[in-house]
């Protein structure tokens, strides 16, 4: 478990972060509010007139108003000038180019002293803008015609003046345009730069920079999704999301770029991006709510492809903005219709099926609604001081998809946690199962061991103790057996039993310890004879296979060998030795008795003892051999160091 900061600390970090943001906001707005209201002048009254001109011309650097016609009409700013029959200054009525003059008088108004700035929210005209103060040209804009971002860029003109210059008396604005378009002008502000900078920057930021930032952020998140898709090719959601971000970015580029508006590829992109956006959103919605909506999909894709192809600049079958053809509004109407249809169809399909689908449908609906003010502004239905909210469709899309991603991320974390928890549980269950299996195996092993041990002891009792006791009973029943003899038989039985018990003692695979134990047991028997036991043993390596059953075989083999010497020879000396040989160890028991014919003994039925030794030796993969002569017998037991299988 990782270290986690305490909840108190977490709250402190949260409060600090939020407070930091709020403090910056307050500081920024205080900066603006600090300026007194007398530092600026709001100009809302103007006069205007339209003059027919032969063509687009460069505005002169100085101007004398006296040369202008005096057909001024009054207007309240902000306002859109009506399409008016121009004053035919010269005979150029067929040129269709007009100049609109707007005159703002500041004479008699209380003017702040020092350097001044002229600020206006928007000048809506397709041609060059020229601003004259007291007859001097102070600013020229849009010399090459309107730029894509012109409508979203506020006017900001610094009036260079000396401190002792007289205050400006009159501002003239010259606007060139065709006679087909209308001119719109927001109200103007004249004042010190410090007083107006706040308004200017706020406008600039909210209308251009914030949407641009969000648009870029959206694109970045799209790139992130693309990389997710690279790793998870089967999840096309991520690819669609990247596509959406890219299309959205391209579709909103015209809000920020300062390129002249021409009937070119950029215009094509800008116009068609809306269609693509709606199509991608539709495909995305389909993935979310899981309904095919075949017909709608066909129509949406068909219309999008058709319009995209027909508006290609080389073909130009359908016109697009900035064309003034009546078909342009039609194209936009199709966009609106398609967006509304996709939004409704998506919303209905996702209603009970996908919360994410509902969110995307709402996003599309909001975006469509945000497009309405744009349309209204473009068509001069509302005041030219209004906001182009279409720039924020990207922000809405980004926000909604942000919520989607947030939900997925949180769900994924929860799922992982649940999976981990259930994994731990499963592991625990498996461990318990395994433990039970082990328990059973152990029990089975134990039962097997007990069973093997019982079998071994039964076999030994049957062959040794049992038969000795039976022969003792027979002898007693037959009668004529001395008590000494019976006692001897019983003592033999007890010796047998002791060896059986010794075989179960922990000898730790030490053959020498086993032989030592045997000697310890036989010692009382040998003490009563005149035989000397010479113990000439060497250290031996451990025999890993030496277990109770094999230990008993070895004990019996050696016991039998010594018993034979005591019983059948008249030896006075027994020599017990051990030695290490090739791949084994060897136990030798030599006596100085009279010896016997080994082959004959092995052939005769009387040689049961020898056969028993052979059988027992085989049982432990050992070999027994005898070398006998008139000077004595040497018995050898060879045992392997390692056995292949000894179970």
């Amino acid at each position, binding site marked *: 478990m990782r270290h986690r900061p305490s909840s108190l600390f977490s709250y402190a970090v949260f409060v600090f972060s939020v407070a930091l943001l709020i403090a910056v906001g307050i500081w920024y707005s205080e900066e603006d509010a600090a300026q007194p209201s007398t530092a600026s002048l709001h100009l809302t009254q103007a006069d205007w007139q339209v003059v027919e001109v032969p063509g687009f011309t460069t505005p002169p650097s100085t101007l004398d108003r006296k040369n202008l016609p005096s057909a001024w009409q009054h207007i309240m700013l902000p306002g859109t000038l009506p399409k008016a029959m121009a004053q035919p200054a010269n005979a150029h009525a067929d040129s269709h180019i007009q100049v609109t003059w707007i005159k703002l008088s500041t004479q008699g108004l209380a003017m702040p002293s020092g350097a001044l700035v002229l600020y206006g929210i928007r000048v809506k005209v397709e041609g060059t803008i020229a601003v004259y103060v007291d007859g001097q040209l102070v600013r020229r804009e849009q010399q090459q015609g309107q730029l894509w971002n012109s409508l979203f860029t506020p006017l900001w003109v610094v009036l260079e003046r000396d401190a002792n210059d007289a205050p400006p008396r009159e501002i003239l604005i010259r606007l060139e345009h065709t006679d087909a378009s209308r001119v719109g002008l927001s109200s103007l502000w004249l004042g010190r730069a410090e007083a107006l900078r706040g308004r200017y920057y706020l406008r600039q930021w909210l209308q251009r920079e914030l949407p641009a930032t969000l648009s870029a952020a959206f694109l970045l998140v799209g790139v992130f999704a693309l990389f997710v898709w690279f790793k998870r090719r089967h999840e096309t959601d991520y690819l669609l999301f990247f596509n959406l971000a890219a299309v959205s970015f391209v579709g909103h580029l015209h809000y920020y770029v300062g390129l002249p508006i021409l009937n070119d590829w950029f215009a094509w992109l800008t116009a068609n991006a809306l269609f693509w956006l709606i199509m991608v959103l539709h495909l995305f919605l389909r993935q979310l709510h899981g309904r095919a909506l075949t017909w709608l999909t066909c129509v949406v894709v068909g219309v999008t492809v058709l319009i995209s192809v027909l508006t290609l600049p080389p073909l130009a079958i359908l016109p697009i903005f900035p064309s003034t053809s009546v078909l342009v509004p039609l194209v936009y109407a199709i966009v609106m219709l398609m967006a509304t249809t996709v939004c409704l169809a998506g919303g209905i399909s996702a209603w009970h099926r996908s919360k994410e689908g509902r969110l995307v449908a709402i996003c599309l609906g909001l975006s469509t609604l945000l497009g309405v003010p744009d349309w209204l502004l473009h068509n001069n239905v509302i005041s030219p001081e209004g906001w182009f909210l279409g720039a924020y469709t990207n922000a809405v899309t980004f926000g909604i998809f942000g919520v989607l991603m947030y939900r997925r991320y949180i769900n994924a974390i929860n799922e992982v946690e649940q999976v981990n928890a259930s994994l731990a549980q499963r592991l625990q269950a498996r461990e318990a199962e395994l433990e039970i299996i082990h328990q059973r195996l152990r029990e089975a092993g134990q039962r097997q061991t007990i069973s093997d041990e019982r079998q071994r002891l039964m076999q030994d009792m049957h062959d040794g103790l049992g038969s000795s006791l039976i022969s003792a009973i027979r002898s007693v029943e037959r009668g004529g057996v001395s008590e000494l003899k019976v006692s001897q038989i019983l*003592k033999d039985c*007890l010796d047998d*039993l*002791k060896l059986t*018990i*010794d075989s179960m*003692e*922990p*000898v*730790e695979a*030490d053959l*020498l*310890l086993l*032989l*030592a*134990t045997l*000697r*310890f047991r036989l*010692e*009382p028997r040998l003490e*009563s004879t005149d035989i000397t036991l010479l*113990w000439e*043993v060497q*250290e031996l390596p451990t025999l890993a296979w030496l277990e109770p059953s094999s230990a008993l075989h070895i004990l019996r083999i050696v016991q039998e060998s010594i018993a034979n010497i005591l019983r059948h020879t008249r030896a006075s000396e027994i020599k017990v030795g051990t030695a290490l040989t090739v791949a084994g160890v060897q136990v030798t028991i030599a006596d100085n008795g009279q010896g016997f014919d080994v082959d004959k003994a092995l052939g005769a039925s009387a040689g049961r003892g020898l056969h028993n030794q052979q059988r027992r030796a085989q049982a432990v993969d050992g070999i027994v051999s005898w070398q006998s002569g008139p000077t004595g017998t040497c018995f050898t037991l060879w045992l392997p160091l390692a056995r292949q299988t000894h179970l």
Partner: protein
Amino acid sequence: MPTSPEPLPIHVAIVEDAPDFRDALSRVVQAAPDMHLTGLAGTRVQGLTMLQGPPADVLLVDLGLPDGSGIDVIRAAVLLWPSCSIMVSTNFGDETHVMRSIEAGAAGYLLKDSSPARMIDEIRSLASGGSPISPIIARQVLARFRQNSPSSAGNSDALKKVADPATLLSVREKEVLDFITRGFTAQEIAKLMQLSPFTVRTFVRRIYSKLKVTSKTEAIYEARTLGLLGD
């Protein structure tokens, strides 16, 4: 029997439930000129009562008593008759029985099927400070001391234990045990180590008492709970 005249007879007490063996043993002890049978008990309770009386030199105890374990009697005797050599009588001299008895405080064991002469020898040897041992027991004792050696001890408690010389085997003692596990008799070992056979047997006695040290505190505790010792 060629015994040197002893100034004081060996006082022998017996705790044995099997009447046959008890009688045989009593007869053997009574027949020995240098021994004197001072007490006979057939049960654990009788044995414990006997321990309240004057101490004997050798106490023969059977482990399987009808009313409990002879181990209790051995532990009580260690405390009440500290000068007495305790001998456990066993059928087979098997590791489990003998080791338990030695740890409780016994100094030797007597195989029940031994010949009378051998029994007398064993009792005499024990009374004079010697102890018998078998190869299997020797191996077990060695293993027990190896457990206490520093190489296998990890904690400070065990280190403290081995630092006590009373719980460590000397080189000679270890040598004796090694010879026994390889099957050599006390006489052979004495020859190999240039000692008297009796010294070899006293070595064994010393080893046994070292083995007993570790379980002594336990013995005191048990004796208290049995009410054999005052607080």
